[in-house]
């Protein structure tokens, strides 16, 4: 904090505001570009003599086109169903796993914690080929279940690891006191530990929601047919066409598809960061 704070006036502007402005421009520029293009009428987009960053006549044509002419609402519904169900399922399993590995002493607990961590590091690009065979064998192709059961393969290890770290930060004495007072283990967990872990559970939930909403490879391979696509897959495979009239609606779809995670995340940004902290320093 004292690093730049001691500098004053022009020095501070040079050392602090200028670099910060550089970051803001670089990191936000693509979003600004998306927004400009999504609001630009086609004839302006085609006019290569015009400054591409100017927006003379803003229009919602591209957004209207998306709602009227494409399946984007259906894709949004698909994404929401899959993400919410997979998140609830994964979070339930992960709270239990995190509690068992973070608070209960038993043989093999440490090893299982290591296995969960390693499972978190197995990327979808390693698993998608054989997983496609499994999905086919269970007849789940192009059904919500295909993603509801496969998203937990990356959500559970991640959320369990995060929650394991979080559960460990809660003092053991609280639980012991309740057990001495005659509460059962189950009650001690349900009434004392879980309520204290709500911030951690909440941020694990937001993480799961964002990861699920953003997932691409499994959605592309297991649910990429017809009207069962998710938003990222639907936009990328339906709207990228080989003609010049695509850009406006493509950018509009990019904006619309990003809004849910941006909202979920901006509401809980503090919880998100505190959950990350607990997970990364304690886990």
């Amino acid at each position, binding site marked *: *904090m*004292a*690093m730049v*704070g001691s500098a004053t006036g022009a020095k501070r502007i040079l050392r602090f505001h200028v670099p910060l402005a550089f*970051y*803001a421009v670089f*990191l936000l520029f*693509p*979003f600004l570009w*998306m927004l400009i293009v999504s609001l630009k009428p086609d004839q302006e987009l085609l006019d*290569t003599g015009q*400054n*591409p*960053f100017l927006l003379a006549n803003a229009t919602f044509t591209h957004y209207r086109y998306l709602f009227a002419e494409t399946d984007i609402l259906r894709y949004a519904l698909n994404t929401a169903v899959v993400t919410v169900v997979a998140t609830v399922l994964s979070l*339930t*399993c*992960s709270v*239990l*796993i995190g509690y*068992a*590995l973070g608070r209960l002493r*038993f043989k093999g607990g440490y090893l*299982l914690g290591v296995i969960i961590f390693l499972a978190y*590091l*197995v*990327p979808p*690009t*390693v*698993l998608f*080929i*054989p*997983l496609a065979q*499994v999905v086919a064998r269970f007849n789940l192709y192009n059904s919500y279940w295909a993603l509801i*059961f496969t998203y*937990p393969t990356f959500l*559970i290890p991640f959320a369990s690891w995060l929650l394991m770290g979080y559960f460990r930060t809660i003092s053991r004495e609280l639980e012991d006191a309740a057990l001495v007072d005659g509460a*059962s283990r189950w*009650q001690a967990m*349900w009434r004392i530990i879980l309520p204290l872990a709500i911030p951690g559970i909440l941020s694990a939930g937001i993480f799961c929601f964002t990861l699920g909403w*953003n997932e*691409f*490879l499994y959605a592309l*391979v297991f649910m990429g047919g017809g009207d069962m696509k998710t*938003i*990222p*897959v639907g*936009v*990328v495979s339906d709207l990228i066409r080989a003609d*010049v009239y695509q850009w406006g609606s493509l*950018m509009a779809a*990019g904006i619309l*598809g*990003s809004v849910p995670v941006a909202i979920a*995340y901006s509401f809980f*940004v503090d919880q998100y*960061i505190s959950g990350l*902290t607990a997970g*990364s*320093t*304690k886990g």
Partner: protein
Amino acid sequence: MAVQPLPRTSVPDRSRASSRFGALLEREWFLAYLFLLPGGLILLLFMAYPFGLGIWLSMTDKLVGFSDYSFIRLENYRWIYGDSIFRQTVVNTFIYGFVTVPFKLFLGLGLALLLNETFRFSRLLRAGLLLPWIVPTALSSLAWLMLFDAVFSPFSLLGRQWGLLDSNINFLGDAFSARASLCLANIWRGIPFFAVSILAGLQAVPSELHEAAALDGASPWQRFQSVTLPVIRNILLITTLFSIIWTFADFQLVYVLTKGGPVNLTHVFGTYSYQKMGAGYIGEAATVSLYMFPILAVLAAILLRYVRRED
């Protein structure tokens, strides 16, 4: 999930079996294994089993649409090893990982140090600057797809309007500039992840130490080296390893921007494996993606050591 009513003494009729179950629930090992069951089943069925199946498939000549296939031992591995596209893929993946990660680390560290200050709108800016990392990559890549477009790239248009360029830049048209473009988009997406992780570590730096060092006349750089760096060293390492793993295993960005082209020169493991699968070669596709595994295993082993030391 039934919650036991609190006053347990008020249910005298409870059968012996359920009270024995209640007694079991008081044992830590029993409760632990019970809790591990639901998640464990899902992971066994949809993770451990496919992983084993993948190793098996990589040793077969399975094709899409044919139920007959045979066990060919390591034939796929030998064949893929000699495949020039695969060799290019390995090179690309290493370029992709080792070019982008240092940029992400240093730029992310810089951003974290800036965001660690308190200033007006710091909360808003903190949230805003994390956007590249939290929105769906497939969608934000569309912005880059247009920024790199051969006809509509605003960089080309402006360059020509200002007389700096004679013709449009074809960012994704040749191997070198396509790889550079992929790296740029990857750096853009990764900076916020480094920044958030490091920022979390910075909050653990005791400010009294900074003040004491400042009173002793230490320069900002000296203070960073001797006060800040020791505290965040482990976080820097862990974040870097995570980022290398994810960059190696990336799919979305390359898929949306180049699909591995031009002429298969920008593939990473994921996109090449996907292309093999699309062409029907299930066995070979599994082999390509499993070639990634030894690299990941080494990285994971190093990572595990540091994460455990944190504990």
